[in-house]
């Protein structure tokens, strides 16, 4: 930190004012969404909306959870949350499982075409799913995986970014530990389970958090491949609750749903802040 002597007095207060202003600007939409989720429909429709929460908290959230928007275009929030949790965990676990093992194979064994596989992985690094969205839809449809959890999960774990990350991490594990394990008689899988996984604990946890949030916040892919509202995930599902011009959008319920869509990732980020930040800075660099 470059806190300096000059920081006392006016500069000090200005710094806090600036930061507080930034915080407020970031919180503002969130706050209003929260307020909107606790007032009645008419209070929203006839602006200005009050700036302080109302008393409709349980009504709105209850309605969102149980009915959604009465099943017109969307399922209940409860159902969507279930779907989202399943998909997010599926993506996080799936991605970590396949990348950790393949990174292990690439780093700790010598087999032909190793370099080839490494470049193969490299190619998948920064091409997001949006670029290959339509053909992927075709592939998933041809497997009959539309409207299924696996269809939601598999395309999103296909890029080998995590494999790359784990590879980088494994390169930092001292050779001597592997040698000691070999001398101790550990076969590759024993080394993998008894030593490599425990050593990688923090990395695994951090990556899990990042992938969970990534999976949770998916929008385009679930939008495309779920035609059955009961398979909606919460992020795309909330959007579907917003009617077109003809329908009147039930804003309080929509906002309640939005809050519930936002909250789990926010809670994770804040409570696991250190771990999460470490995962971000390690994984994106």
């Amino acid at each position, binding site marked *: *930190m*470059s*806190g300096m002597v*000059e*920081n006392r007095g006016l*500069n000090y207060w200005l710094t*806090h004012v*600036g*930061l507080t202003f*930034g*915080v407020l600007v*970031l919180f503002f*939409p*969130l706050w*209003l969404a929260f307020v909107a989720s606790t007032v009645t429909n008419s209070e*929203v*429709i006839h*602006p200005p909306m009050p700036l302080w929460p109302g008393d409709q908290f349980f009504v709105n959230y209850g309605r969102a959870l149980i009915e959604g928007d009465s099943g017109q275009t969307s399922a209940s929030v409860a159902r969507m949350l279930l779907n989202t949790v399943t998909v997010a965990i599926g993506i996080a676990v799936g991605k970590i499982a*396949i990348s950790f093992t*393949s990174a292990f194979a*690439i780093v*700790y*064994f010598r087999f032909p075409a190793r370099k080839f*596989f490494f470049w193969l992985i490299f190619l998948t690094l*920064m*091409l*997001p799913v949006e*670029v*290959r969205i*339509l*053909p*992927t839809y075709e*592939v998933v449809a041809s497997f009959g995986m539309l409207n299924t959890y696996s269809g939601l999960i*598999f*395309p999103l*774990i*296909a890029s*080998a970014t995590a*494999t790359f990350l784990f590879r980088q991490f494994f*390169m930092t594990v001292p*050779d001597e530990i*592997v*040698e000691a394990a*070999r001398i101790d008689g550990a*076969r590759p899988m024993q080394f993998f389970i008894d030593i490599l996984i425990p050593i990688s604990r923090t990395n695994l946890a951090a990556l899990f958090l990042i992938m969970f*949030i990534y999976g*949770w*916040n998916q*929008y*385009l892919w679930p939008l495309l491949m779920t035609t059955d509202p009961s398979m909606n995930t919460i992020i795309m599902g*909330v*959007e579907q609750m917003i009617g077109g011009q003809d329908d009147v959008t039930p*804003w309080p319920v929509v906002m309640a749903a*939005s809050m519930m*869509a*936002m909250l789990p*990732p926010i809670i994770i*980020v804040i409570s696991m*802040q250190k771990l999460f*930040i470490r995962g971000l800075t390690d994984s994106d660099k």
Partner: protein
Amino acid sequence: MEKRVYFKGWFLPALLITPQLLITIVFFFYPAGTAIWWSLFNPDPFGLSTKFVGFANFDFLFADSYYIESFYTTAIFSSLVTFFSMGIALYLAVLADRLIKGAGIYKTLLIWPYAVAPAIAGILWMFLFDTQTGLISWYLGLLGYDWNHLLNDTEAMGLVIVASTWSRVSYNFLFFLAGLQAIPRAIIEAAAIDGARFWRRFWTIIFPLLSPTTFFLVVMNIVYAFFDTFGVIHTITKGGPGQSTTILVYKVYSDGFVGLDLGSSAAQSVILLVIVGFLTILQFKFVEKKVHY
């Protein structure tokens, strides 16, 4: 540097790498390859017939005024989002870095938007500016300004930029703060003793030392603006009004999925693939120099 220690055998590693390989081939390379294939054809959306057209799809795209416009839209959109979200984040990071105590609290208070999906960010901001019920649009109405982003191009663009920027500030803030905190205090103190006041110190020492982080963030933000903002645009404007907020990736979706023009959409995907590929190479050549292979 090659790791010099390894286990013997080839069967086990082959087994271990198979799941990743399978999934990547089936759900990544095959679709990517298909996109390239389709871009050279005029596939009928019902799969009944296809006709090889060579580069015709690409020629058509570059002659299409809507597509060219989409390029401009994307360029403007991504540069503005990058500029603003990085600028604001840098400002906040510099402020937070100056604090000896309390930076942690601000960090917590500023980091959470990262967890909010861009689509939700879009919904939140759309709510604020809703033509009938939005709080801000209502106040603007009181001041005499009739806000309607559903009709006005510039307002639509402005709104999606604001929502996308809002969503991205915390990510940039984290990296900038980390970059600032990595600068050795001794250098800054030496400059202060040499008589440099804050702004001079900032421009001549801090900013140059921050350039790897800055460069890295520019690339990441451009990629973000290209792709992750789909959710923002789809929720607020759906590319409108009149395709004025249709960025390239949105067009891939709307032409392909809504318009059912698979060949054109595939060609657009290929073009995007090239652009991102270029950005990736840039990223690795200049930013990841310290990564050893």
